[in-house]
């Protein structure tokens, strides 16, 4: 059984879809109270690539994710998946939520099987697949535990498995490792990088952690502060599989990091000039690093 299941895992049906975001704007409120969160934003999430979006906290990243997932509609512009416009939530674009959104009243196994059951696909093949995924994310012994009985890292892995069983064409991860302690975060990043190497499905990964971004990304989108646009794109051509230790020592990675930090710094300065408190924190934290490096 394990053999059958693992061949299923290793044979992705496709390498995922491509998402094209074009001139998207989104604002909340009406009339004079309108707050523009996303402004004329355009970018592409390339097929089977891992695109990381990084930007200051509170810059509207979560809003963009809701637009991509179809939970909300843009005021103008289009979001297209393989040339088909997004009209609502769909199983082709699944979100791994910040701090996880596992259903507290379901066991790990029931959480993972949620999608298949919702679509009436509770088949022996699916159960085998769930079994294989449980093994893969190291939660086989925890299948009957509720999310509150899992550690932070286990919860994140359970959420990954709950997404992956649906074989989404695009995985959207919204700061998936936020709030974990440094050690667990590092482990989860390595773990996630291996998963990605195996499946190579189109992935959109949102983070505020620049080291995480360089370690994982094929492309990094650097976002401006509110209202959000893509301010620059950095290609990360480091070979895979990557090793977290090597990356911190590689000149190429360090060059990318400097470039990204400087771009983020510029963004922070701009929004600081507009009176953003978050930006002040960022400048304080990163000015030192830039001058030190």
């Amino acid at each position, binding site marked *: 059984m394990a053999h059958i299941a693992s061949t299923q895992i290793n044979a992705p049906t496709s390498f995922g879809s491509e998402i094209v975001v074009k001139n998207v704007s989104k604002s909340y409120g009406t009339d004079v109270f309108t707050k523009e969160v996303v402004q004329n934003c355009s970018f592409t999430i390339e097929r089977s690539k891992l695109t990381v979006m990084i930007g200051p906290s509170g810059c509207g990243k979560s809003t963009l994710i809701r637009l991509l997932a179809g939970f909300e509609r843009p005021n103008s512009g289009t979001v297209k998946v393989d040339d088909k416009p997004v009209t609502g939530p769909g199983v082709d674009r*699944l979100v791994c*939520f910040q701090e996880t959104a596992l*259903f507290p009243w379901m066991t790990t196994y029931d959480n993972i099987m949620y999608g298949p059951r919702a*679509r009436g696909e509770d088949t022996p093949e699916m159960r085998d697949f769930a079994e294989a995924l449980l093994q893969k994310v190291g939660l086989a012994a925890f299948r009957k535990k509720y999310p509150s009985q899992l550690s932070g890292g286990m919860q994140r892995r359970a959420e990954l498995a709950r997404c992956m069983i649906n074989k989404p064409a695009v995985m959207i991860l919204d700061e998936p490792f936020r709030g974990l302690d440094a050690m667990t975060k590092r482990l989860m990043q390595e773990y996630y990088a291996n998963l990605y190497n195996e499946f190579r499905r189109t992935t959109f990964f949102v983070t505020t952690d620049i080291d995480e971004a360089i370690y994982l990304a094929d492309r990094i989108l650097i976002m401006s502060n509110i209202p959000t646009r893509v301010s620059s794109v950095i290609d990360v051509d480091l070979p895979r599989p990557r090793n977290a230790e090597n990356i911190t020592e590689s000149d190429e990675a360090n060059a990318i990091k400097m470039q990204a930090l400087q771009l983020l710094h510029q963004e922070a300065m701009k929004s600081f000039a507009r009176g953003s408190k978050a930006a002040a924190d960022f400048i304080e934290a990163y000015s030192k690093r830039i001058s030190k490096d």
Partner: protein
Amino acid sequence: MMNQVEAIFLKATSFITGEEFWRGVVAIIVFFIFWEVGSRSEAWSGFAFPWISQVPPPTAVLLEMFKLIQEPSFWHSAYLSTLRVFEGFIAAMIVGIPLGLAMAVSRVFYGITFPVFEVLRPIPPLAWVPASIIFWPTQELSIAFVTFLGAFFTIVINVIGGARAIDVRYFQAARSMGSSTWDIFRRIILPGTLPSIVVGATVGVGITWAVVVAAEMISGGGSAGSMGGAAGGGLGFFIWNSYVGGSYTQIVAGMISIGIAGYISSAAIRKLGDLLTPWLAEG
């Protein structure tokens, strides 16, 4: 298995040897000594404690309770009250849970029902007693209806609050994974609201006991007389009759019986709730 038994044993022994436990025991003993001394001091020393000297001493009450539990008429009273509590409570659950869910789910339905609901809610259940005696054909039904009201509003308010507090991301996740509306209702809204339903039921059953006793006092005990006089009309009527008959030990014994009955009902519902919501258990 052996380990489990051992663990339970260890837990029990550590509880009994713990400071918390003995503090509680000492507090209860001091309370009873104070009560006993207070109510007997006039006979002993001529000094009457204010208030407490009017209350029968706990030893007399205990003696009275010991006599009462041998009387079938007392048990019939307790049975009648329990029956009314459960009639009212179960009816409140059957009507209240779907109503609360519908109000939480549908904006239109909420807009129509909530104003009426909010006007009726502050009316104390006891204020309904005269009206319900007029409306309902039998005393029994009117008491059960007032009991129903006691639990109903609490349950509905808790269900609405619980369903509204469900994390919006659960709906987003479920919708993304291909859930139908019915599926979301059954597998997200219902289990998500269950903890609040349990809280509402636990609080509601306590109110039900408070209401049934008062309703019995006011209405004259419904089927009073079926078992002969004082004991026919439930615990509320039993207390009222003891008051009229001047048996103060019986009043206090009746009060304590209600306390015990209410405690058992709440504990049973809490236990049932724990079984229904295993994901909230520790560990």
